[in-house]
């Protein structure tokens, strides 16, 4: 079928088209807008899952924008690709699937959650734009295109974080994120300019062929690493994260989680598929590992003492990102050494990847549950809550699932990925595993606190009239909960069919280049 060739392009074009049509449709009626955004996000999810299926069956997909045909990456007479190319392998496609689930949940949840506020046509348009930016960052195979999508998603998220614009804190959080993020974007742009000046290419596959471990490449790698590390919340640069995650509406926070993971996807792409063995220095993997350990412990220890529910979860995001950074750092350390790669490297990369997918799902669910608490209680302060489990049984069960998953309690998926990370990082140094285990314990402790103070305890008089949140919000949460349960109940299927091919695609630098540049080296 010809349509199947166009799936990568449709993943980007659909949300873009829908985003620009939304204000025009919203002029008709609010109901039309709601139906429109729901249909579009369901369609995007469908397209992304079809893309994942196609990639798993047929191997890496490329898509050349503007070419006479979708697969002409090298027109005759050209040594390097000149057009913008989307390159989708198992790794990209898996991350895109998690992001698609997050945006589906956020869209459905947001229908009722933000209903009573004004400016909803721009909310919907920006949300779809954020989806397009995230998908673009994940799927792109072109460096400058990556910068453009990074900025699209950044600008959309600044607008969405400040959606509650008459709350001073929201605008403040948006401003702080914007300040750091703009500096990071300039570093990325200058890094890309370095690449262009040094190698004359902006295509990722061509760059992965050309890259040498010289001074310029190292500087570029550090710029990209710091900028994207900031975007996904590595420790000394994470301060924007709890602020903006807490102040954004809950339906947006789900998507912000996916966007920050898109940055991590590109970071892994740079470290593994583009640089690979040409990384030239053991300092880069160790920087990842050290930042990861600091994030793990620093994030969670700040989370334990918080009493504002979404801010607490924001600090947990920092901590969870630390697990992935550590795992990818260990994988990077083992790169180029076949024995070490077989021994623990691939397991570390798979663990990090699996944890990334799990993290998007359960952290999204946790933020949605926190939003539900805010929706009924009118406050995010845990001191003012209590006894809500009787009033909101569904939300409390969903929260319990997500909290068990993030704390790594068996039978949930969070345990499997954390376990894979523990066992692989142990091979590098046992202290990494100790840090990870202590962080995990503290995670459990802080979520016990949240559950105990918000859901358990005696009923409070001011919540006598509280009812369960509306059905559409439950449906949004159920999307993520169902995904968590599937990943939990079929771990071996997940690891063997989804995660392992993705990890192998990530570390296989030669085949990443070959998909665009052709087989000849």
């Amino acid at each position: 079928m010809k349509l199947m060739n166009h799936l990568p392009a449709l993943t980007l074009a659909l949300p873009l088209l829908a985003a620009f049509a939304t204000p025009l449709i919203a002029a008709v009626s609010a109901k039309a807008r709601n139906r429109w955004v729901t249909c579009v996000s369901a369609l995007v999810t469908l397209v992304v899952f079809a893309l994942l299926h196609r990639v798993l069956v047929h191997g890496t997909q490329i898509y050349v924008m503007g070419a006479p045909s979708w697969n002409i990456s090298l027109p005759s007479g050209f040594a390097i690709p000149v057009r913008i190319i989307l390159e989708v392998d198992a790794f990209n496609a898996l991350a895109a699937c998690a992001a698609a689930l997050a945006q589906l949940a956020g869209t459905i949840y947001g229908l009722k959650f933000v209903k009573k506020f004004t400016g909803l046509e721009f909310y919907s348009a920006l949300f779809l734009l954020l989806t397009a930016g995230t998908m673009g960052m994940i799927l792109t195979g072109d460096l400058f295109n990556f910068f453009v999508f990074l900025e699209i998603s950044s600008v959309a998220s600044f607008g969405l974080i400040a959606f509650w614009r008459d709350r001073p804190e929201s605008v403040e959080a948006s401003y702080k994120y914007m300040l750091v993020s703009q500096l990071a974007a300039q570093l990325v742009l200058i890094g890309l300019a370095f690449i262009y000046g040094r190698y004359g290419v902006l295509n990722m596959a061509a760059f992965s062929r050309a890259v040498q471990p010289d001074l310029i490449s190292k500087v570029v790698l550090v710029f990209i690493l710091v900028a994207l590390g900031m975007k996904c919340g590595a420790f000394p640069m994470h301060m924007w994260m709890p602020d903006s995650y807490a102040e954004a509406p809950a339906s947006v926070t789900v998507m912000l989680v996916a966007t920050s993971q898109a940055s991590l996807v590109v970071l892994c792409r740079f470290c593994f598929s583009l640089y690979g063995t040409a990384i030239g220095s053991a300092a880069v993997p160790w920087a990842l590992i050290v930042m990861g350990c600091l994030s793990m412990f620093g994030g969670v220890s700040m989370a334990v003492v918080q009493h504002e529910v979404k801010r607490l979860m924001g600090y947990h995001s920092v901590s969870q990102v630390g697990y992935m950074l550590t795992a990818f750092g260990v994988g990077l350390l083992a790169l180029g050494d076949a024995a070490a790669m077989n021994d623990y490297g691939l397991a570390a990369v798979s663990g990090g990847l699996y944890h990334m997918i799990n993290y998007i799902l359960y952290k999204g669910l946790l933020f949605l549950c926190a939003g539900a608490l805010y929706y009924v209680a009118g406050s995010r302060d845990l001191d003012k809550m209590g006894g809500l489990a009787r009033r909101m049984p569904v939300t409390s069960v969903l929260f319990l699932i997500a909290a068990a998953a993030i704390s790594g309690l068996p039978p949930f998926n969070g345990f499997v990925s954390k376990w894979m990370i523990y066992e692989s990082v142990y091979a590098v140094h046992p202290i990494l595993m100790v840090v990870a285990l202590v962080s995990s314990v503290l995670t459990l402790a802080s979520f016990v606190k949240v559950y105990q103070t918000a859901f358990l305890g005696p009923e409070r008089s001011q919540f006598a009239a509280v009812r369960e949140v509306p059905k559409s919000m439950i449906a949004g949460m159920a999307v993520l909960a169902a995904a968590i349960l599937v990943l939990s109940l079929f771990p071996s299927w997940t690891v063997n069919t989804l995660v392992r091919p993705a990890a192998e695609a990530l570390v296989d630098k030669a085949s990443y280049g070959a998909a665009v540049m052709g087989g000849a080296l």
Partner: protein
Amino acid sequence: MFGSIFSGAGFWDAGAWILAFLSAGGAALFIRRMGRSDYKKGTDQDEIYYSGNVVPDAEIFTVPASSAYWGFREALKSYYSHLTALHCGIATEYVGWFVFTAALILTFVLV
């Protein structure tokens, strides 16, 4: 049905865990059934026993979230004072940390 994942040191099986949870739940239910049968709902037996005193309001009666893990926080007071000072809320200091990290990593990578 669910399959297992093997690593060098052990294996993971979701089915085994579910089986364990089911049997533990069954045992709990069994023990619960062996309890007293003269319990009646809606009588004085439902009341909270508070040393014979009147039970205060929920606001006073519960430990608020900001007081939870007080001992933990108190023991690590010096650590937390540093960590809270890091999250000072000033946007330009956050930018400063970003630049500092970039410079640090650049030094380690290039040297």
